[in-house]
């Protein structure tokens, strides 16, 4: 078998190749040594076949194109690793393998839950700003931005204004809260679109 040093004449190409192989090994580390090496071999063969097909004399560029077409190992290997771990766990009944598979599987779900929760909190905040703007004319004394006695600030709707607190903005809180509500809503919604695009890219496989 060729060693990496035989594959390329440009040292930087060898560096890029080795870095990508390390990424593959890192992404497949929950697998057994045998499965991990088998996967690496298959991906190396794919990558090098693509590299050979690329036109041009610059090895670095050809390799970079091949790597770009191959995709990020963390993204495309994770479902494969999860599948293999579950299959292995079912075959061997090894709790450690089953646990590793579950953790990997859940990590994607957990990320989604955390991100969704953050967006949820953001939208609630946007609604809260809107409420401040709407309720200020009806309850000018208890709605607004308050400077508290201890040096802290409170923005919102209070049951009763604490002793020593002073309302700072008056009716200026209305445009300010409205602007913040709109800004937050726009930023979050734009962010949501980006997330959806990323999710599609991640799911670019089947």
């Amino acid at each position, binding site marked *: 078998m060729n060693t990496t040093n035989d594959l390329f004449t440009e040292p930087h190409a060898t560096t890029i190749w080795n870095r990508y192989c390390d990424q593959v090994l890192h992404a497949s580390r929950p697998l057994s040594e045998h499965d991990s090496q088998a996967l690496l071999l298959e991906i190396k*063969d794919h990558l090098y076949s693509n590299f050979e097909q690329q036109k041009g004399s610059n090895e670095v560029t050809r390799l970079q194109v091949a790597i770009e077409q191959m995709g990020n190992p963390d993204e*495309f*290997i994770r479902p*494969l690793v999860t599948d293999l771990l579950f299959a292995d766990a079912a075959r061997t009944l090894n709790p450690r393998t089953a646990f590793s598979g579950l953790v990997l599987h859940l990590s994607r779900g957990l990320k989604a839950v955390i991100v969704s929760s953050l967006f949820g909190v953001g939208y609630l905040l946007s609604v809260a700003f809107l409420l401040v703007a709407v309720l200020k004319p009806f309850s000018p004394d208890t709605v607004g931005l308050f400077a508290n006695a201890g040096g802290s600030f409170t923005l919102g709707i209070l049951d009763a204004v604490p002793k020593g607190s002073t309302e700072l903005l008056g009716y200026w809180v209305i445009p300010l809260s409205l602007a913040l509500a709109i800004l937050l809503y726009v930023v979050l919604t734009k962010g949501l679109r980006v997330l959806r695009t990323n999710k599609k890219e991640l799911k670019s496989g089947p």
Partner: protein
Amino acid sequence: MDTDTKITKWESQVRKGVFDFVILLCIEDETFYGYELMRRIKDIAKIDVAEGTIYPLLNRLAKEGLVTSKWVEKESGMPRKYYQITTQGRQTLAGMKQSWRDFCISIDQLLEHS
């Protein structure tokens, strides 16, 4: 989003949705290694995905008993893993083909009435 972009996205999703079917069709009569299979899929079916994504899918098809694989040593270079369809894979593919034809007929009927 303009109409062309929407159609392009929709078309891409439709193609990705039949990725399993396309893989089985490609290896129905020939064995392929990963890169070769991906080229064929891209050329014929115009499915534009990150090439690495084919490996989780091939692994799943193998686990389902629809494809099998074997390593072949090359005279020079790295060993290569070839995929071929199994008997169960052929039976599944036959069913998929029928479903696809039925689906196309249904859509054609809708198109005629639209």
